[in-house]
């Protein structure tokens, strides 16, 4: 029996505890909205949590009629890993872990693994980053190379693949903020992917390998704090890694928004715009449901005079995913999900669409551009870099 099959068997008693309440996919507290982004777009329950539960049940029952064909495999991988279902599960089922294990089962048994996943995993193994880009251009965005590999730094800024190779404006803003606030920080030039894409498809062995290699690098410095701009990376280090290995992440993990908030709070600093600006804020799944950081972004924004925050209907723990892990798991569905979230933001009438995650920035910019809206998508750090 392969690993994933044994893991699935552990869910036998758990999966049947589902009471079918639908809390995993509805967002009825808010209005006629769905919570599960895949179900919202695809409409059939087999794309949502209850359907995935049924797939696990049928596998565990050795149902010979259930064929792991192309369409079933597509359904299994169509999960955004957003955690909405688990957050609201009335029976308290570990749905995220179950669905990740189901994906791992498909990786081991199906002949129809989506190309996007296979190629992403290959890129990671070969190049240590999800984009498969070469190391040479890794720090093209960084003007002051002296911040690299400083052994005496107190803080390591772990940039993460998406910020490092794609949303570099976020990395630039963070370096600028860290300098403006006189932080003793460094960036490790040989940082690797955190391993999230492997965790997100249930391959804990490969995932933890990446995390451990990074931790080893961190330990070669004198730093006590690891700072993240990507909540996905942060959650991987302090939640997924700990869950998979039962070992604690041996550093203090901090999201950049926590860092800025502490800095401003300690110094009682308030900032202001010259002209009134309206903004809406998207709670990234891993920052919100994953790390429970709902108040800090809002507290930070409340420190800016002339900024009016207009909440979207689906906010905080009920936030609707930007498409997240679908970038590799099912890019077609991801586009539709990003568009729906972008539309919700546009409908608020805000001028700026804020978030605090590079993957969200990437997906939501695409969503906004598809809808031809002039709302400006920004990471909160970019806003603070302008004001500090």
């Amino acid at each position, binding site marked *: 029996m392969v690993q994933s099959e044994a893991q699935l068997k552990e869910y036998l*008693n758990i999966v049947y*505890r589902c009471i079918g309440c639908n809390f995993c996919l509805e967002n*009825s507290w808010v209005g006629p909205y769905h919570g599960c982004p895949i179900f919202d777009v695809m409409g059939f329950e087999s794309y949502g949590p209850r359907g995935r539960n049924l797939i696990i049940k049928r596998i565990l029952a050795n149902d010979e009629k259930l064929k792991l064909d192309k*369409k079933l495999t597509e359904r299994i991988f169509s999960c955004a890993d957003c955690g909405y279902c688990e957050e609201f599960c*009335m029976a308290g089922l570990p749905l995220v872990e179950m669905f990740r294990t189901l994906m791992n089962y498909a990786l081991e048994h199906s002949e129809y693994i989506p190309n996007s996943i296979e190629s992403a995993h290959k890129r990671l193994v070969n190049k240590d980053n999800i984009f498969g880009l070469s190391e040479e251009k890794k720090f093209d965005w960084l003007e002051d190379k002296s911040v690299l590999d400083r052994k005496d730094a107190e803080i390591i800024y772990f940039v993460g693949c998406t910020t490092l190779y794609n949303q570099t404006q976020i990395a630039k803003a963070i370096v600028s903020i860290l300098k403006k606030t006189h932080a003793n920080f460094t960036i490790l030039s040989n940082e690797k992917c955190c391993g999230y894409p492997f965790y997100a498809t249930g391959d804990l062995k490969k995932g933890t390998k990446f995390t451990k290699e990074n931790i080893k690098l961190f330990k070669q410095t004198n730093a006590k704090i690891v700072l993240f701009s990507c909540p996905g990376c942060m959650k991987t280090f302090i939640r997924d890694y700990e869950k998979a290995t039962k070992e604690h992440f041996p550093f203090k993990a901090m999201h950049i928004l926590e860092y800025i908030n502490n800095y401003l709070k300690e110094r009682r600093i308030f900032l202001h715009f010259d002209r009134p600006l309206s903004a809406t804020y998207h709670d990234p799944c891993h920052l919100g449901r994953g790390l429970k950081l709902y108040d800090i972004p809002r507290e930070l924004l409340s420190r800016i005079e002339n900024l009016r925050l207009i909440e979207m209907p689906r906010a905080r723990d009920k936030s609707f995913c930007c498409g997240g892990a679908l970038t590799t798991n099912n890019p077609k569905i991801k586009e539709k999900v990003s568009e729906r979230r972008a539309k919700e933001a546009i409908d608020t009438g805000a001028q700026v669409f804020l978030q605090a995650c590079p993957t969200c920035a990437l997906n939501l910019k695409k969503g906004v551009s598809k809808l031809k809206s002039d709302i400006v998508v920004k990471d909160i750090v970019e806003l603070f870099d302008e004001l500090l």
Partner: protein
Amino acid sequence: MTLKQEYVAFLKDIVGPERVSTEYIDRVFYSKDLSMDPTELPGAVVLPKTVDEIIKIVKFANKNKIPIYVRGRGSGLFGFKVKEDSIVLVLSGMNKILNIDKKHLTVTTETGAVWLAVNSMLWKQGYELTAQWHGGAISSTLGGAVMANTVARTSEDGTAFGETVVSLEVVLPNSQVIRTGSAANPKSIPFERYTLGPDLAGLFIGSAGSFGILTKVSLKIRRKQDVTEYLSFRFRDYYDAINAVIEIEQRNLIQFGIILIGDFSDDTVCALRIVLTGDFNNIMYKKKLTESICISHNGEPDNPEYVKNFWETYYYSWLRGRDTRQYYIWASEPYFCPEVYGYFPFEQLPKIYDVILDEWNHNPDIKKYKGILKGVDTFITPNGGFVWFDPLFPKLDPEAVEFGLQFRNRMFDIFMELGGCPSTMSSATSKLILSKTGYTYEFMKLLKKTIDPNNILNPGVLFPEEL
């Protein structure tokens, strides 16, 4: 078997290829509700988005004599099942809120709108449905609530969900579309149910989709109440509790009331949980009077926080003082609930409680199959009580499942014998229940034959497959 390829192609032409599935996993998923009753697999699952699409599908099904089963969220415990080679129409995607009419106090929605979703939108504008909640889960649809005629958590305005219906839009088995009540007049709006001839809405409410496919529903709304208060009492005698309830109902004091039977550690036999709503002027009067009535009937005050937690979080388990997550993992293995339910007149309530508990405590098979008594609860209605009897049996033991289903059927028999009137009908239980109504059932069959001569709509749900 999946539907013939040519049929599937035709359905895809109507609704688009992405909204038709013949995948095994979808056919399994949409073949049943949350019950454990055996079912067959449909030939295709279709997600229509418009009334026009439904009309075309009904015409097509009639022409080819293909059974159609209509479904919302499938969150019932009643025993929904389908026939092989049928089409399951899933209406949960038709969930728009079409109009909130504050002058005439109605809301009109598509049939797949979820109860709480509609209520949440109304709350934002200071209104709410007069039927707060209904029997199913939070995400059950309004169409499902009407077709099952579920039980609302509302005592002031009537408890049967159907009582809040103002108008319905229905696609008949012959594919014609009709509207009931004032909306039948094309020049009018949905504001009055009992007009323009017989109350046709009543034909469809509780009909389990046998006479037509519900596409729009207009329901009564009211201004959201200013204040909510909670009371809780324990009783050592059923009659005391029921007498208190009768007096409370005569004065129409409460928003919601429920009697809980079983699992008390002391000599308490039942608990009464009460929710009161009102404005600042009358709420304390209602509360004091309700309290006095309960105490005068030997009620002992209990923790009102349980009721508050329940009312605010929607988690039913709070009524028994248990956090929800704890509630559903209390046993070492997964259980299913072959629910038995029915309206009873006040005087029969103590009898049915005694019979249920006697059966539960003395039937040796209950222990053999590791039965657990989840609860015996009674929603208080203006003219009686709606009793839910929720036994639990192990889900993964086929013998226990079979016993549980047989036990449910036997209990329905007993309910009918004692004057109980089960409301929601399903393929698993309707024939057993309705056949006891004699000519009334025969008349219903006659209506079905006349309206749906090919028996394509939900065959075998309310009536036998062969009429």
